[in-house]
């Protein structure tokens, strides 16, 4: 650790790759929107051309994720360590994992409709990361010099990615079941309705969302336990209700509630979907507001 050489030049290249990825994500996003509009078109001919468009969008998305991945790897090499030791790095790595997992799940046909949401979210995260969270490459502060940084944070990123996809599916579910929209005859809403009609049936959305949340919950439980083990080493106690620990606990409790909801009569469907969104809102809150404005031991944003 003592004779680490940082490589700021490579860090510049990493940033360039991230910007390139953002540009390509934008294109992918637009093509996915275009695809949805084709798919929901009333003209048969338009509908027929949709799959081809979807393939192009997928291809563009893969290109974007390759640039994105290159940016993440270069950042890690530039810093001679794992690229997730501050908010900027956590954002670029986290969003990369979200898109990568989404691509792995591509073979589940029903999941493809949320491509717009996932691509848009990745774009937003990268935008915030590059404009608000960016810091130059730094060495690890002593409190982060531990293999637990690899274990605990990797799993936290993965959990967040699964929760994120589940939340996108929950949004799709809620839109699909939006009673007022279903009944409305307003012409302006006809297009929205047509778009929604190409979504998979809501039962499928619900069960997919449940699956992603379930995996997310397993990973989050691991994150929480691993965090406690690390806290014992780094901060001399396994649990101390530090703000970050509090929010990790809150998130865990919300998703435990979600799992109970799916098994309780009267709580499935929309209510469970809302809970899933509340859980994801807590994750976003934990990552942004808590990191930036709250006092605590987890001050690793690297921002002043």
């Amino acid at each position, binding site marked *: 650790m003592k004779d680490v050489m940082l490589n700021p030049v490579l860090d510049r290249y990493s940033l360039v790759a991230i910007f390139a990825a953002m540009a390509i994500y934008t294109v992918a996003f637009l093509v996915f929107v275009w695809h949805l509009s084709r798919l929901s078109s009333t003209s048969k001919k338009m509908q027929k051309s949709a799959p081809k468009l979807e393939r192009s969008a997928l291809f563009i998305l893969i290109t974007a994720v390759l640039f994105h991945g290159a940016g993440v790897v270069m950042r890690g090499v530039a810093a001679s360590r794992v690229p997730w030791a501050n908010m900027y790095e956590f954002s670029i790595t986290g969003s990369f994992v979200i898109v990568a997992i989404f691509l792995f799940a591509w073979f589940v046909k029903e999941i493809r409709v949320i491509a717009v949401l996932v691509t848009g979210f990745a774009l937003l995260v990268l935008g915030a990361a590059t404009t608000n969270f960016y810091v130059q490459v730094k060495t690890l502060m002593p*409190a982060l*010099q531990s293999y637990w940084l690899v274990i605990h944070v990797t799993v936290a990123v993965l959990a967040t990615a699964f929760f994120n996809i589940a939340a996108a599916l929950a949004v799709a579910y809620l839109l699909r079941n939006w009673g007022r929209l279903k009944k409305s005859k307003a012409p302006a809403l006809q297009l929205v309705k047509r778009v929604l009609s190409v979504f998979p049936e809501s039962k499928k959305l619900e*069960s997919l969302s449940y699956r992603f949340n379930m995996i997310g919950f397993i990973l989050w439980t*691991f994150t929480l336990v691993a965090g406690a083990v690390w806290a014992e080493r780094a901060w001399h106690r396994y649990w101390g*209700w530090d703000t970050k620990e509090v929010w990790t606990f*809150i998130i865990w409790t919300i998703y435990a509630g979600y799992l109970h909801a799916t098994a309780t009569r009267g709580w499935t469907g929309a209510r469970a979907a809302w809970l899933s969104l509340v859980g994801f809102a807590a994750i976003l809150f934990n990552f942004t507001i808590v990191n930036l404005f709250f006092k605590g031991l987890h001050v690793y944003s690297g921002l002043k």
Partner: protein
Amino acid sequence: MSLRSDVTHGDEIRSPKLGPAGWARWIWGQITSMRTALLLLLLLAVAAIPGSLLPQRSSDPNGVTAYFQANPTTAPTLDKLQAFDVYSSAWFSSIYLLLFISLIGCVLPRTRHHWDALRSEPIDTPRSLKRFPAYLAKPSKQAGVLENFAEQLRRMRFRVKVTKTSVSAEKGYVRETGNLLFHVSLIGVLISVGIGGATSFSGQRVLVEGESFVNNLAGYDSFSPGVWFDSKTLQPFNVKLDKFVATFDLRNKTNIGTPLDFEAFVSLRETPTSKPVASKIRVNYPLEAPGANIYLTGNGYAPVLTFRDKDGNISFSGPVIYMPQDANYTSLGVIKLPDAKPNQFGVLSFFYPTKAVLKTGAFTSGYPAPVDPLVSMNVYVGDLGLDNGIPSNVFSLQVHGLKQVAGGKSGTKALTLELGETKQLPQELGTVTWDGLKRYASLDIDYNPMQVWIFLFAVLAFIGLITSLLTPRRRVFARKTETGYELAGMAKNDDPRLQGILEELVLGLKVRKK
């Protein structure tokens, strides 16, 4: 007919005519219902929020003091509501205790139910299969279809019951086993956390290079034991801080001054008579001593100072702990000289490891290592308030009521010393010499005897969780019909493989036929 309903209690609607026993049962049913568990879980999440918005005594006592100073009217009211001790408050505790009562009330009958289910045959085939989530019916004249299905299902590790006209099969009992293991282990975690809190201790000690610490109550600067902690259990080990090394980055331009490593080189004697063993404590890598772990939690500089009165008699000599105030170790130290002649006085002093001058003319530190160190001193005379027996914080000086004679607006400039220098104090207070510079380490000495148990139960809970969430629990039924047979399947939580299994069974039939 739902697999779900046989594990959820109390969700059914009861008739309102109840005696006292009936009421008790009804309340118990409510408490142990899944809906209550859900609401309590969500309530717990909400109740945890204020503790992250307000400073807490357990993790940030200085923050609480500051909050009281900034909000003198609201703070006492909030304090009455235990808002600064959220996680040990009556309301937070009652939520999680209620949740765990509910949990116990839920787990006990489920365990018995599951125990019975494990030793009994699958349920009878329901009369109508058509409305099951997976269903298919086929015409067939083949003989021995049911036996064939039963055989296949057994090979798929289903538990199978065959009657003349139907087959009932079930698999995935381990799902419920895992679920029970998870919930029981959570109770284990809670109990271990409770016992651990009562039997553990946490102590702090600051050691300057060359100083040592003996593990008994007198050896600690501060000590917080659990209610059942017995100080006789402290093992008499001895730790000496031989040397403290802090390494800061000087090579990477974007990173100058960032700490790269803190290393406390110590020698540990496990008993008063055993040989010292050299060891190193780093952040994240505590030292394991008998009956306690020693953690490195902070560090700083301790300039060695000597104060003499005007006749040359020493009134104070030794290292003084300076508290770092910023990342470059601009540090604040306090020296109190209650026995000084002719007046008692106090010194509020700053230490700059690498002195630099701000535009305002004030000193600051430009780099955390002692490249060009400087000490500055403000001197106050007057009653230091140490004689009235009220304990006072050694790290702060109450300047109220004292007269400043050097620094600030006193008319005399603050004293500044380079390493090795001696300076005259104002008003015939004598001299001060800066003899040397040492470093110190802040150590935390902690022990929680239940920690392994907490970890063990957490691991069991995790194993239980994975087992229960990832094991599908399925029921498959087959029945002869007039024209052939029908198959149906159901699962706990929907299961995309269900229909596939039924089709596999049909396929298995054809393979046999060939």
